[in-house]
């Protein structure tokens, strides 16, 4: 069972992640994007962006880095081999573009138990170097209880 006392716990800001063009292209190809703003710098600039635009779910890369600190936290007591992804949402204040340097702060929004299972919801706020909020990733993990 996930420790309910971690509800409200805020984890330290992650180190900056530099969004690279080739990482955006790699991610775009992996999710079958053919959208030129993800792949072609000139197309992205013609559409008004400074550089390649990351696909809508790219923020998961940043969220993943934040999640590591929770999964490694003995207080939270999450058995990763029993984790199933329940739901996921991304709210964008602006698009992530190549050249962005992003940090994130993860907060445990809620811990609920559902029979033998636990459901833990995280909010990951993603900021640029100006400390402006770029995107919020909200993720619920279901941790299956033991037999």
């Amino acid at each position, binding site marked *: 069972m996930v420790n309910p006392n971690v509800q409200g716990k805020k984890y330290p800001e992650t180190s900056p992640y530099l969004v690279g063009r080739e990482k955006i292209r790699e991610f775009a190809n992996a999710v079958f994007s053919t959208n030129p703003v993800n792949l072609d710098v000139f197309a992205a600039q013609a559409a008004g962006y400074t550089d390649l635009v990351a696909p809508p779910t790219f923020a998961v890369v940043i969220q*993943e880095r934040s999640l590591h600190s929770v999964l490694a936290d003995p207080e939270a007591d999450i058995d990763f081999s029993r984790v199933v992804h329940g739901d996921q949402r991304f709210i*964008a204040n602006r698009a992530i573009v190549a050249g962005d340097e992003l940090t994130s702060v993860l907060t445990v929004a809620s811990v609920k138990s559902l029979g033998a299972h636990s459901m833990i919801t995280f909010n990951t706020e993603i900021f640029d170097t100006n400390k402006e909020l770029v995107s919020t990733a909200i993720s619920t993990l279901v941790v299956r209880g033991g037999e």
Partner: protein
Amino acid sequence: MDILSLEVGQEIGSRTFSFTRDSLVKYAGASGDFNPIHYRDDFAKSVGLDGVLAHGMLTMGSAVQVAVDWIGDSGKVIDYGVRFTKPVFVPADSGAQVIVTGKIGAIDLENKTVRVDLTASCLDIAVLGKAQAVVKF
């Protein structure tokens, strides 16, 4: 495209995604999610699964492409959420086909946004629930 020309219920497009083990390895590398349930049958079985399954985030990231293709600019997707209702098993030999369709769920003329409702299925079973992408006009 003029927001005034759109209607709720209107279909905006459809795509079929072929997930193979190669797709899963590519997505693992691109996303940094190296959970072995997405590439090792022996490991998947050891944790009680029938076999290797696709990353939920691969299904989510692919499904939204139907909305992106329609609007033409991925940066216009300002809010996107899904529930993962069923796993997509990806056999090593045959792979899996995920069929995604999108239609207009709501139109907000004041904020100039359109909600696209997506359905995603594999072997006729819905694999995403409440998959909604809000697009800025």
